[in-house]
C-alpha cells in the first residue's frame, strides 16, 4: 500500500480521485503549489514508518513558509485598537 492509497482510504475516496484533487489544488493555487507538489511526490512511496516520518518532516517547512508569508508584513496599526 502506498501513502496515497492510505490517505485515500482515510478520506474515503479512490486514490486516483485524491491525486486529481491534489493536482487541481496545484493548478488553482500558486501559493500552495510547492507544498502540494512536494507532498504529491512522496505519496507513491510504500507505507513504512520511515516514509510517514519523511512525509511529515517535508510538510512542516513548507507549511511554515506558507504561514510565515501569510502573516509577515501584515501588521496593521488598527488591528491593535
Amino acid at each position: 500500500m502506498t501513502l496515497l492509497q492510505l490517505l485515500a482510504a482515510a478520506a474515503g475516496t479512490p486514490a486516483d480521485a485524491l491525486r486529481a484533487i491534489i493536482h487541481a489544488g496545484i493548478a488553482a493555487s500558486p501559493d500552495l503549489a510547492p507544498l502540494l507538489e512536494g507532498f504529491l511526490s512522496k505519496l507513491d512511496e510504500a507505507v513504512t514508518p520511515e516514509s510517514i516520518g519523511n512525509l511529515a518532516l517535508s510538510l512542516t517547512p513548507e507549511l511554515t513558509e506558507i504561514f510565515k508569508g501569510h502573516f509577515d508584513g501584515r501588521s496593521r496599526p488598527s488591528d491593535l485598537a
Partner: protein
Amino acid sequence: MRLKAGWILAALLLAAPAHAGIVWRAAAAANAITFDAVAPKPNDVEVGGNLAASLQPHISAVGALAYGFDHSYLRGSVGARFTASNVDDPNFSVGLGMAYHVSSEPGIRPEGWAPDASIGWRPWPVDAPRVNLILQGQYQLEANQASAIMGVRYEIGGQP
C-alpha cells in the same frame, strides 16, 4: 483511520506556526476611554494588552484585555476586523469589525456584541516602530451604549 489522519494534519498545522517566527501581534496598551455622555471625560484610564492575527489580507482576528483604574473593572473582547491600509503608507490603517465583550462590571462596561470602527497610526516608523496610536469607537448593541477609546500601543516581541 479518518480521525487519526485528521489529528496528524491538525498537529502539522499547529506545529508550523511555532517555527514561523511571529504569527500573532501583541501589544501593551494604555487607553483613555469615554462611555458616559454626562460625566467629565475621559471617564476612565485603562491599561492592558491587545492581540491580533492577520488571517487574510483584509481580515484579522483581534482580542483585548483592559483594566479600568477609576471604576475598577476588567473587560475583555474577542472579535474580527476588516482592515484597510494605504498601499503607499502601511503605517496607517482603518478597520471595521465586531467583537464580543465581557466585563467584571457589566453595569459600567456592558457585555455583548458591539460593532466598532478603528484607526491605527504608527507615527514614528523609523525612530519608534513599535509605537502605535489608536482611536476606536464602538456601540454596545444590547446596552445601546456608545464608547470611544484613544490609546497608545507598544508592540511586544518579533519585528514591528
